[in-house]
């Protein structure tokens, strides 16, 4: 008997005893996308049960699939997460009007998922018309999260506020939107009470404070509130007394002349927030007013100090009150001394991000150096996520750091001067990243910098067995480097490269690899149109897109974006994007 037939009949015999509804019920308990993908490959029955029971879908590249294909496979989706532009668009490497417009998706969803509840978008273009469409067509809509999106204005937000009766979440983390006025916030109806998450920290206009205060008062389930910089300290106090159950707070300006009474009222308001685990904002905070926070810091696990240029002593005083801190984001104004205070006070720290206050300042004794990072590695052994902008680093320091903290999953080191060697030995930084990949076996994400030869990439290819995302800039010596990575890292999903001497041979060495990856970005490298054409010809299931601008000469492929797709070439590509 044909083995397949016997398998099927055995399976249907089993299925008769095990109804689809039960299977669906069981599978509906699966949350992880990876688990669900695995489950759907077991058999046709399981594939069907999984697709009927799936309510949340995550699409890491909006051009890898069409909304029609998604809707055909998954009939019951309530929550959609979509990511659009390549990550380097954050750094202005992708021209405007590149694409990733949500409208074509919304049009299909309006028909196929009228009960859609959640939309989470990252690096997509969203127009005001789309927001109005969303507010109009989806009666059950609850949660909108827009991260690094563009194309809309506060008018679109007004439509959402006015019409979405069941809204629980409005989370706007943006750059590049038009902030016409703060009136959108006044558009929430007076009988609207369901809000749980409100984040408008990145908008700049004044909002009607009375409307905000009333909104906060009547939304008893509000857990997350991030206001913008126009909200003053005394206004903050009034909000806090109305929302003592907040778990996440982003304050406005922390710079205001308060009298003694106002100060103690504010302190008391913070003291009433017993459930706070995340704090951000604190614009222009100084040593004078930071102490009002201390009573609220006992359970703090995430402190985001990106908007305030603290010095080392000020930071130290705050950290003493945050014994449970797991995640800390700071500006490098705290210096190495500030990081020593982190090492002393935050034994539970798992994530540290240090951003440059003055990215173009070349003075090397400004900001942080290898000694700050070293200090943290001695004091915070649980460190697993680091993003570190510095002006000098040594191979020896990095080797010691990873010895102290071998559990890194995300290691993103940015030595800000491109191609800078180890400042003590003047050697390339190859051994530093070699140490990282050899020691940190759980490493998922790596960003390299400094003067690097192909040796760094040999190490990465050979040792980084769990690496999924790699970011490379101004590094490498020849095609061999990129080839090592493409032939080595089995779990590689995203590779983004800029300003490296990698050419066609390097590009084509990944022929066997790209269909198992989400995407490849290469800009300002040595790839030519010919190389891209070969790739496109050999791999029809990839989209090979080249962006041209007037700087690049004819044969050169200045910006290349390659990604796997079941959707075929883009139909909305702008004139400067060529799909080969």
């Amino acid at each position, binding site marked *: 008997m044909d083995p397949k037939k016997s398998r099927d009949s055995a399976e249907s015999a089993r299925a008769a005893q095990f109804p689809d509804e039960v299977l669906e019920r069981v599978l509906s308990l699966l949350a992880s996308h990876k688990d669900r993908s695995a489950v759907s490959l077991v058999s046709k029955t399981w594939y069907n049960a999984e697709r009927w029971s799936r309510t949340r879908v995550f699409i890491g590249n909006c051009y890898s699939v069409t909304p029609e294909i998604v809707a055909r496979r998954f009939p019951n989706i309530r929550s959609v997460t979509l990511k659009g532009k390549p990550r380097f668009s954050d750094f202005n490497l992708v021209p405007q009007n590149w694409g990733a417009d949500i409208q074509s998706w919304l049009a299909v969803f309006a028909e196929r998922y009228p009960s859609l509840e959640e939309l989470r978008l990252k690096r997509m273009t969203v127009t005001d018309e789309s927001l109005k469409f969303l507010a109009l067509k989806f009666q059950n809509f609850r949660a909108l999260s827009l991260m690094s999106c563009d194309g809309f204005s506060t008018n679109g937000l007004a439509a959402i506020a006015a019409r979405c009766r069941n809204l629980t979440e409005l989370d706007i983390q943006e750059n590049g939107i038009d902030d016409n006025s703060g009136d959108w916030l006044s558009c929430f109806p007076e009988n609207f009470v369901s809000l749980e998450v409100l984040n408008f920290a990145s908008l700049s206009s004044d909002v009607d404070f009375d409307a905000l205060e009333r909104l906060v008062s009547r939304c008893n389930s509000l857990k997350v509130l991030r206001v913008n910089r126009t909200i003053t300290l005394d206004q903050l106090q009034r909000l806090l007394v109305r929302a003592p159950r907040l778990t996440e707070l982003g304050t406005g300006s922390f710079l205001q002349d308060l009298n003694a009474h106002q100060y103690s009222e504010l302190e008391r308001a913070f003291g009433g927030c017993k459930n706070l685990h995340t704090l951000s904002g604190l614009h222009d905070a100084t040593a004078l007013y930071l102490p009002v926070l201390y009573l609220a810091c006992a359970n703090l696990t995430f402190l985001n100090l990106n908007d305030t240029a603290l010095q080392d002593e000020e930071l130290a005083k705050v950290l003493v009150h945050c014994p449970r801190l797991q995640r800390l984001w700071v500006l490098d104004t705290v210096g190495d001394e500030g990081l020593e205070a982190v090492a002393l006070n935050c034994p539970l720290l798992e994530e540290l991000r240090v951003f440059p*206050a003055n990215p173009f300042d070349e003075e090397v004794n*400004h900001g942080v150096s290898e000694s700050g990072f070293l200090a943290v590695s001695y004091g915070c052994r649980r460190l697993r996520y680091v993003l570190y902008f510095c002006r000098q680093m040594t191979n020896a320091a990095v080797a010691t750091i990873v010895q102290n903290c071998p559990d890194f999953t995300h290691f993103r080191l940015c030595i800000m001067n491109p191609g800078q060697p180890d400042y003590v030995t003047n050697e390339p930084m190859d051994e530093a990243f070699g140490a990282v990949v050899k020691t940190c076996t759980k490493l998922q994400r790596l960003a390299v910098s400094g003067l690097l030869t192909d040796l760094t990439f040999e190490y990465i290819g050979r040792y980084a067995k769990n690496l999924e995302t790699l970011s490379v800039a101004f590094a490498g010596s020849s095609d061999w480097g990129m080839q090592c990575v493409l032939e080595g890292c089995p779990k590689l999903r995203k590779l983004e490269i800029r300003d490296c001497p990698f050419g066609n041979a390097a590009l084509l060495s990944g022929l066997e690899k790209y269909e198992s990856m989400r995407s490849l970005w290469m800009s300002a490298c040595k790839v030519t149109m010919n190389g891209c054409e070969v790739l496109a010809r050999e791999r029809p299931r990839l989209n090979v897109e080249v962006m041209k601008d007037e700087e690049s000469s004819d044969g050169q492929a200045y910006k290349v974006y390659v990604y796997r797709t079941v959707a075929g070439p883009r139909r909305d590509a702008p004139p400067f994007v060529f799909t080969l």
Partner: protein
Amino acid sequence: MGRASAKDYSPSSSSSSSSPSSVDCSKHKNRTGASLSFASSMCQFSGCNSGCSSSTRGGRTRRGDLNTDLRLGLSIVSPDAQRDNWIDPSASKQREQRQDWPPIKSLLRTTLAVAGKADTSVSNVHNNNGDRNASLFVKVYMEGIPIGRKLDLLALHDYDDLISTLAHMFTTPIAYPNGDRADHAESLHVLTYEDREGDWMMAGDVPWEMFMTTVKRLKITRSDRC
């Protein structure tokens, strides 16, 4: 700290590097693409004038002559912005500074610029960050002259600094409220600005920090208009 100078990034001067980085010219490129502070402390990149052509971006010409323009203080939009002709003309002034290195998101870059500036106004003996190379450019027009200039507000400390810079730029004395009336008694011009709400206001009434967060553009108008 005994490290090689930050400017010393050409591999030939670091003797023990095993293979030369082929990207040193790209580094130069990114410097000229970086913030064009009016105070022009970035003009130390005299090395760029050698017009190196062995760039990784084969065939791309070096903009070595840009540095001369910087020294003359001419207003030049950053090269990336110029060549990127898909810029939405209604873009906010933060987006006009198109930078692509170091890899920090644009919004964070602007926030850092203002945070860094706030730091200067807090007097602190440990603060040696006197050099602010982040920028906040606004357009400046003088009434009657159709071609405007651009000015980096973050390179200035206060209203006095602003007025004297503008007076120098346009070679005319300018008056403003609370300014030194004796010096500017004869001036025909006053400084006005357009705020976020689109209204034209006389410069000098609100604190400098507040002014910086609300100003969109400047205009030097005749004093008989105010």
